[in-house]
Structure formats: C-alpha cells, structure tokens
C-alpha cells in the first residue's frame, strides 16, 4: 500500500481504520485497483515516475462525514486532495498534486438542494454535475438556465471554484456564485454571505453579507472544503440572435477589438465569443504557403480573391426578441467605422427550443444545455489534452503580440507552426481576453516531456510580457505561481500566512496554486 509522504505506515493504517469506521469500508478505497481509478486520465506524466498517484481515496456523503475526514486527517497529518465530480480533465482530473495524498471524493454529495425560478438561483452540493442540475430543472419545468462549460459532466461547484467559464451571460462562474458553505481544516462549518445570518432567505440573493468578503479565498486554493454553493441562474430568455462581423485588412483588428470591447463593457454584448482569423484555417495549399512565407499584403489579397474575412467575430445576443435585434443593429452601426466591414446575420432562436430544433443543434452549450460534444474536437491519436490559458489585454496590439510571441516559442521548441494553427482568443471573462491553447496528450513519454518543456517556456515567456495564466494543470501550478511575483512574491506570502492560520497541519490540497503547508515549504525552497 502506498503511504502519504511524511506519514508512518502505522499512522496511515490507523487513519484508514478511522476513515472506515466513519464512512463504512465500502467508501474507503485502498486497493491499487480502486486507487488507480483516481489517476489523471489526461496526465502529462503518464507512465513516468513523476505522475502523482494517490495513496487512497475516501468518499463521504454529507457535511458531518466531511468534518470527520478532516479531523482524522489532522490527527495523523494526512494530506487530502478534494475533488467534486473529479472531471477537471486538462487541469489534473481527479488526481492530487502531491503524490500519495488521500483523495477526498465528494461525488456522493450530489443533491440539488434548491432551484428557485422566481429569484433565479440554485443551491447545490459539490457532486452535482451540470447534467444533474439541468435534468432537475427540466423535470420541474423551471424557467431558468444553467451556464455549462464545454463538458457538462463537471460540477458547478468545482468549476466555479476553479473560476471556469461558459458561454451565456452568466459565463463567469465564480462571479455568478452566491454564498457558500465551507468545512474548515479544523472541522468548523462556516456559511458565507447571508448564510452567516440564521434564518436569512437571501443566502443566494445577496453575495456579500457583512464584513470581509471571504468567498474568494476558497477559489483555486486549499483553505477549506466547500460543501454547498449557491448560483445565480439566468431567467430563460425570450430569444437569441447572432451576427458576424467581418473585416478585410490586417490592421482592421485594432478597430475591431476596440468596438468589441466597447460593446462588451457597455453590456450590448454579454456573452462569450472569439475573435478569429479565417485565414488560420483551411486546407488550401496556396493559403498554407502564404501563411508560412507570405506578406500581410499577400494574405489580404488572398482574402479578397476568395471572399473570406481577414478577421471576424460572431456576436451572441440574449434577451427579448426586440432588444436583441436592436443590439445587433447598434453593433453594426458601431462597427461601421471600419472601411469595408461586412455583416452576416447568424442563427436566431426563440426559447424554449423544441425537440426538432434540438436534434439539429450540434453544440447546445450556448443555450444552457450541457453536452459532451466538445470532445468531438481533437485528433484520433489524442489521449487527452491540457490547456495553456493566459490572460491578455483586450486590444488588437496584444492579440498580435501574443500570436507572434507564442508562435516563436512553438517554432523554436517543436519546429512547427504551433500545436494548433488557430489562435483562440476568447471573451469568457469580462474585459480581458483569455487565450485557450490546446495541447494534445498522448501516452508517449517523449512527446509529453517535450510538451511540458514547451508549456513551461510559454509560461515564462508570458510572464516576461505581463501575461499570466488564469488557471492551470497541477503540473504547472508552481511555475505559474512563481510568475505572480510582485514585491518579492508578496501575494504568495499572503496566501501562506492564511494557509498557516487556516490549515496549520497542511492537510488540504498541498501545493495547490503554489501554496504549500509550512512543513513542506522549506523542502520546496
């Protein structure tokens, strides 16, 4: 049996026995066969010694059992690693950062506690998936939307704590949460916001409660175990409309992004979209040659000849039918400052969608319907993926700079144009762009090693330019945490101060986002 680092075999055996007494043997996994189920299916260390594999897993079914788990872990200084649905693929999946940790699997805590379609909110446990919540809402006939991320098998709680995003106006998942319940390392149970006031009916209506707003410290961190979380839901809108804006010159990007930022920040556009160059796609050999060695003018001429845009953005509008039509009209007015700009009306729908419409929509995620269709992307030999996701300013200058800088890294280290020819710039989060680069993972040690090297170089290069990642795989959390170094890593020192106060024995998610327990910090230095 694997034993957690720093724990004696006899202490571990005693802890396991106590876990079993608290949960029942059925919910404590110690055999190699059972524990291997917690490996990261998309690990960039597959087959390597470095792959962090747990020593055991425990699956509590309620707050009291979670309290029991942390108390036992504290007694023997057992490192735990909390997962909700455990589907954080591309970022570490269900595996811990520190090999030998005991995974605290909250999947069994899968109750939808409340969905309210008059004040538009839900309260859920961590093991609830987007599919679960959607099904609940459909069964009860409630007129509210959820906001799923690309894959619907994840957890609203887990995804929001990772600060993930979706596509509808409620796309910033952490921003749209309202209230949480947390089991602290010492076993205490805290409710934040209005949840701290007994009998309040506004726990999921008003975020801040009174005094310091602590919710943020439980996101992307290891300061507590979240056992309930509230979410604001979008009232089912009347309509959806989309329209595409197309420009023909390389230099039009600056105005395109400027107008886009204005529309986004004034609320005319409220959802997720991507600025693309259609010239980055396509199998035309002439285009491939031009991409490799042509000038900007060559590409502009090609675009004109083939009647494709140089840059384009599709704008999604949600709301009343009259308002979305007016918003699209206003957007066209604003973009008309760009000479030669063209527009194309896109899909439009009224809600709810009927079965016939649903059968034709390959990607229903922008309509609040969870799906796994995102996995249709990716090559046939891919055995997984991971994401490099830096935040860059929402300007044309930054888009071009990032494209050039990252392409250079790929050319140097992999001798290719890049892992993907496209340059994915997204508005998942208000006001900044996030780039979501796709890295394939294969069960090939050499390829994975090379990709890790490229990834680390991208992190370093990003930091030099003032771009930092919003989220990452457990393999790179230390590297990215190092990049947020203002004033001699003052932010990390603040995190460590909080860690030492809230979890002095370091039992929760050691190493998450570069935050190590005190006892392990000296060793890492």
């Amino acid at each position, binding site marked *: 049996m694997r034993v957690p680092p720093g724990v004696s075999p006899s202490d571990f055996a005693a802890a396991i026995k106590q876990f079993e007494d608290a949960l029942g043997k059925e919910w404590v996994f110690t055999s190699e066969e059972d524990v291997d189920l917690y*490996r990261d299916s998309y690990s960039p260390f597959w087959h390597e010694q470095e792959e962090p594999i747990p020593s055991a897993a425990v699956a509590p079914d309620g707050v009291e059992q979670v309290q029991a788990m942390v108390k036992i872990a504290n007694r023997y200084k057992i490192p735990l690693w909390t997962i909700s649905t*455990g589907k954080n693929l591309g970022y570490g999946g269900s595996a811990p950062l520190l090999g030998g940790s005991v995974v605290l699997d909250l999947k069994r805590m899968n*109750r939808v506690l*409340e*969905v309210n379609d008059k004040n538009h909110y839900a309260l859920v446990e961590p093991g609830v998936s987007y599919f679960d919540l959607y099904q609940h809402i459909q069964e009860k006939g409630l007129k509210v939307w959820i906001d799923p991320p690309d894959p*619907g098998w994840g957890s609203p709680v887990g995804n929001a704590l990772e600060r993930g995003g979706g596509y509808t106006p409620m796309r910033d998942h952490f921003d749209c949460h309202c209230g949480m319940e947390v089991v602290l390392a010492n076993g205490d149970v805290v409710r934040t916001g209005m949840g701290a006031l007994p009998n309040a009916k506004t726990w999921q209506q008003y975020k801040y409660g009174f005094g310091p707003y602590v919710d943020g410290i439980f996101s992307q961190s290891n300061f507590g175990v979240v056992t309930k979380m509230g979410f604001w839901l979008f009232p089912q809108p009347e309509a959806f409309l989309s329209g595409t804006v197309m420009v023909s010159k390389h230099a039009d990007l600056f105005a395109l992004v400027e107008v886009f930022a204005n529309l986004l920040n004034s609320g005319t556009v409220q959802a997720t979209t991507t600025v693309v160059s259609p010239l980055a796609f396509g199998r035309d050999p002439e285009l491939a040659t031009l991409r490799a060695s042509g000038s900007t003018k060559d590409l502009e001429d090609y675009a004109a000849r083939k009647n494709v845009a140089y840059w384009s953005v599709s704008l999604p509008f949600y709301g009343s039918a009259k308002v979305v039509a007016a918003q699209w009209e206003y957007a066209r007015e604003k973009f008309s400052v760009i000479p030669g700009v063209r527009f194309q009306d896109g899909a439009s729908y009224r809600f709810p969608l009927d079965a016939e419409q649903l*059968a034709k929509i390959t990607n229903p995620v922008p309509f609040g319907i969870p799906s796994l269709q995102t*996995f249709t992307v990716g090559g046939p030999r891919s055995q997984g993926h991971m994401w490099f996701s830096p935040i860059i300013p929402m300007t044309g200058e930054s888009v071009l700079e990032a494209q050039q800088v990252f392409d250079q890294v790929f050319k140097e280290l992999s001798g290719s144009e890049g892992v993907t020819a496209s340059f994915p710039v997204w508005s998942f989060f208000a006001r900044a762009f996030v780039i979501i680069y796709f890295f394939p993972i294969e069960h090939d040690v050499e390829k994975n090693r090379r990709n890790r090297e490229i990834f680390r170089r991208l992190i370093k290069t990003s930091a030099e330019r003032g771009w930092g990642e919003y989220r990452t795989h457990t393999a790179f959390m230390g590297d990215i945490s190092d990049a947020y170094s203002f004033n001699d890593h003052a932010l990390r020192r603040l995190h460590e101060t909080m860690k030492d106060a809230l979890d002095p024995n370091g039992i929760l998610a050691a190493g998450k986002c570069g935050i190590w327990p005190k006892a392990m910090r000296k060793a890492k230095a």
Partner: protein
Amino acid sequence: MKKLGAYLVVALAFFLVAKALPAQEAVPRSSSWTTATTPSQGEPRGYVQYTNYCSMCHGEGVGKPGTLALQAKYKGAVPALLDKRTDLTQALIKTYVRNGISIMPIFRKTEISDADLDAIAAYLTRNNKQ
C-alpha cells in the same frame, strides 16, 4: 372541550401546512446524470444506467463524440452505436470504463458503481449470440 377540539384542528392544520412548505425537498440520489426521462416499464436491465452514464458520448444524434470516434475507427464494419453491437464482452466494457481508452477517461466507483457497471455490461451484451 369544544375549544380544545378547535385548538387541535388548528394545530393539525399548522402541522400539515408546515410539512408542505418547503418548495422542493433535497432529494438524496445515487450518483447519476442523465438527460433521459425516467424509464418506463419493460426496459432491459442496464438501460437506465447506460442512458445516464454513457449516452452523452455514445448515444445517437448530433454531437456524440464516442459514436463519432467509433464511426471513424470502424468505418461501418460494426455499428458505431455501442448499444447496437453484438460482439462486445462484459470484460472488455469493464476494462474500458475502469481504464479509459483514447480520450474516454477512467470512471470511478463513486461515478459508476460496480453494480451499475455490471448492469451496463449486461445491457451492451444483451444481443450477443449465445
């Protein structure tokens, strides 16, 4: 006596109203996710579990990555829809679910219990030639 009776009726009424008040009770459920409706009678063993845990990727219709992957792999030599296959073995199904394959990840026992996996394996082999 009459007054006591009246009090009792009122108390009972309060009790009944109080019980009815929570708009939706928290419903304990076993691990599952589904977009299917609740099963009607007569469905074979494992149909519900297959629908709940597998059909998002392996079902019919648009945007089903498992079905698309199998179509690309076998090019029609066998049905791309898993539940139309007649050549799968229970051991193979369990191996894929517990080990993953290609981009299909591992599924833990808290997601798909051994009992549910048995049912799914039974469902997917129900049409095998004996």
